[in-house]
């Protein structure tokens, strides 16, 4: 019955093709003051942004690498290309998108979901967006959905007001790096009281060898507004290490609601080091929905600062760590106002020699009465060699806080597999079913086509694992 285990890590990465789109401008490897200035100049940025970048570059040089988490010692900042532009022209409609790029999306299975949701889709290709279309209706309502470079040109005042206000360059070394060399990303503004019906979508890919992708995404949800944003990421395989280091800043004003969904599947050589943070004001709700598959190392802790009374944070994440991968993920919620609520659900799956870490912090400051927090971490181990660890820091300074915390570690049960097999389901499919069941609390929050894609990604990870 038992077959030799083949590991997905040794197979060719399914999405690991690269296409022949010629980047028109490509920098040499390495980072200096000059590189930072060049990036800013090429984009014709206003002086304050050049200054911001240069200041951030100094901070980047001063800050130490984070050493409290995953092993980052292999990253060589001099071996990375910091800017690439895939195409000088800005596409306005799908027909003008180069065929190679379309083909790439097709191989990724993107067009299906594009078809339905194309309205408002913003697909980033290499460092800048090549395609952007915004549904007319939202435009009329005053919704701004552009890439961040465009936002800097066309909505400078708005961008300047919030840029770095949630994640300052001083926050950590990688946030500083992103601020110095950022390119692309989405900029989204929802005016007062506007509710955007369909989720807005963006796809990110890394395409040029050794290229770091440093997108900068900002969402400003004005009072009483409501929006969902989805990003899906996959990347081609390359032999040398790639770095993806994004910054996402979100402001949820009074009574607004923002759901930010990430579904990513980086190839096994990518360092994925992302700083995502939101501020939620009075009675606003911020939801992070975050799936992490692939990459060599992912360090990501979507966080929410609950700034005013009644604000809510809801963070639900899953991580799949395969052989050679370390998913160091979790969440951070800081209760800075009374009667604020947080809920964190983290699910991780470790396979082969993969390792997943939950690292979380819930902090309730003194005098913030009536706060509630609920933290759940469930880890599923698929093999003897796989590993998981949990660091759930909880710092409570107010005695009225209601805190619940639960952590479970389980193994794929032979009893369950046998039960499903007895109903005719083959062993590998039975495993997939149980695993997809394990992450169901996550998948059920996704739009249907993403849920399907998610299950398919899991199946790809599980391929050849019958043993």
């Amino acid at each position, binding site marked *: 019955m038992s077959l030799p285990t083949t590991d997905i890590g040794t197979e060719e990465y399914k999405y690991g093709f690269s296409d022949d789109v010629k980047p028109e401008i490509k920098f040499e490897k390495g980072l200096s003051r000059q590189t930072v200035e060049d990036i800013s100049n090429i984009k014709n940025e206003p002086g304050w942004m050049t200054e911001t970048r240069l200041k951030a570059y100094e901070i980047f040089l001063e800050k130490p690498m984070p050493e409290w988490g995953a092993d980052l010692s292999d990253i060589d900042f001099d071996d990375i290309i910091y800017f690439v532009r895939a195409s000088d022209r800005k596409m306005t409609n799908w027909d003008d998108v180069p065929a190679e790029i379309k083909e790439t999306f097709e191989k990724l299975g993107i067009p299906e979901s594009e078809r339905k949701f194309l309205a408002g889709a913003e697909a980033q290709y290499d460092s800048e967006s090549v395609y952007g279309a915004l549904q007319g209706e939202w435009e009329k309502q005053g919704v701004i959905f552009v890439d961040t470079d465009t936002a800097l040109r066309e909505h400078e005042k708005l961008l300047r007001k919030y840029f770095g206000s949630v994640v300052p360059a001083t926050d950590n070394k990688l946030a500083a790096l992103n601020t110095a060399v950022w390119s692309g990303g989405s900029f989204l503004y929802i005016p007062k009281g506007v509710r955007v019906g369909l989720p807005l979508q963006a796809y990110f890919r890394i395409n040029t060898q050794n290229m770091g992708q440093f997108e900068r995404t900002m969402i400003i949800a004005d009072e009483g507004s409501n929006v969902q944003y989805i990003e899906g990421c996959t990347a081609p395989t390359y032999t040398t290490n790639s770095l993806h280091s994004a910054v996402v800043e979100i402001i949820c004003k009074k009574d607004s609601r923002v759901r930010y969904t990430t579904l990513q599947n980086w190839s096994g050589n990518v360092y994925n080091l992302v700083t995502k943070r939101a501020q939620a004001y009075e009675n606003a709700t911020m939801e992070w929905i975050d799936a992490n598959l692939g990459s060599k190392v992912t360090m990501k802790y979507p966080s929410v600062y609950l700034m005013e009374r009644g604000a809510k944070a809801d963070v639900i994440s899953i991580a799949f760590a395969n052989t050679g991968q370390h998913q160091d993920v979790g969440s951070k919620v800081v209760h800075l106002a009374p009667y604020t609520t947080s809920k964190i659900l983290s699910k991780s799956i470790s396979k082969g020699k993969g390792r997943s870490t939950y690292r979380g912090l819930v902090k309730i400051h003194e005098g913030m009465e009536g706060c509630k927090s609920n933290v759940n971490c469930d880890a599923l181990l698929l093999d003897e060699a796989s590993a998981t660890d949990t660091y759930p820091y909880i710092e409570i300074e107010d005695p009225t806080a209601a805190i619940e915390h639960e952590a479970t570690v389980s193994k794929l*049960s032979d009893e369950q597999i*046998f*039960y*499903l097999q007895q109903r005719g389901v*083959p062993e590998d499919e039975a495993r997939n079913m149980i695993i997809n*069941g*394990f992450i169901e609390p996550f998948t059920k929050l996704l739009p249907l086509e993403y849920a399907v894609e998610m299950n398919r990604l899991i199946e790809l990870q599980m391929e050849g694992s019958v043993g």
Partner: protein
Amino acid sequence: MTTENGLLTIKDLKVKINDKEILKGVNLKIGPGEVHAIMGPNGTGKSTLAYALAGKASYEVTSGSVTMEGENVLDMSPDERARKGMFLAFQYPSEVPGVTVDNFLRVAYNTVKKKELSIWEFRNLLKEKMEFLKIDESFSGRYLNEGFSGGEKKRNEILQMAVLTPKLAILDETDSGLDIDALQIVAKGVNELLPEDSSVLVITHYQRILRYIKPDFVHVMINGKIVETGGGELAEKLEEQGYDWLKEKYGESGKDNNNVTANN
């Protein structure tokens, strides 16, 4: 009295769990459309027989053979056996969080029946069986067995049987934990929702279920062997007199004089 071309033929089956011999030479032949019952004291190997037939991995078959319609069952994986038409209603069904009853059963149905029913087509089929078994429709969207009461789990096993319509249904103590009404509904399901020529192997401690699901044969298992075979009256006798007379006749160990084999 038995068919020449049995559906299932078990010959001298010996099974070890963790190096301990639990089944010590079981012989049993089940013809198409027949109902067999196995009774016997706790821990004598009834569930072990059921699991071994279904192909549970940790059950080591050390000798003997099992064939279904002439094919060697012991060579098949559990899912192949299921697709051949073998169904086991578990004594203790597993809970599978996050997997809904309807999604799971649709996959199972399509796999076993080699069909591709859509969600909607399957829902109709499922709904009909659920109505028959008086299972509330909310159960179809619930996670498989998670939080089900003991009786609900048993009824859910029969629902699965009704959907998959196996050639051989092995019911391992499906009656225990069912209330009186539920027992009748379940028995009715077994009698009416399976095809005419499907066979049933009922493992039970009580004669009551056999009043509704009429057995053609009743077997008694003691210490890993079938020691006595009779008709429905044997079950009544056991209910009245217990197993002592059999233990006396064949010894605690189940191996004694008459060289008893089951059925023919």
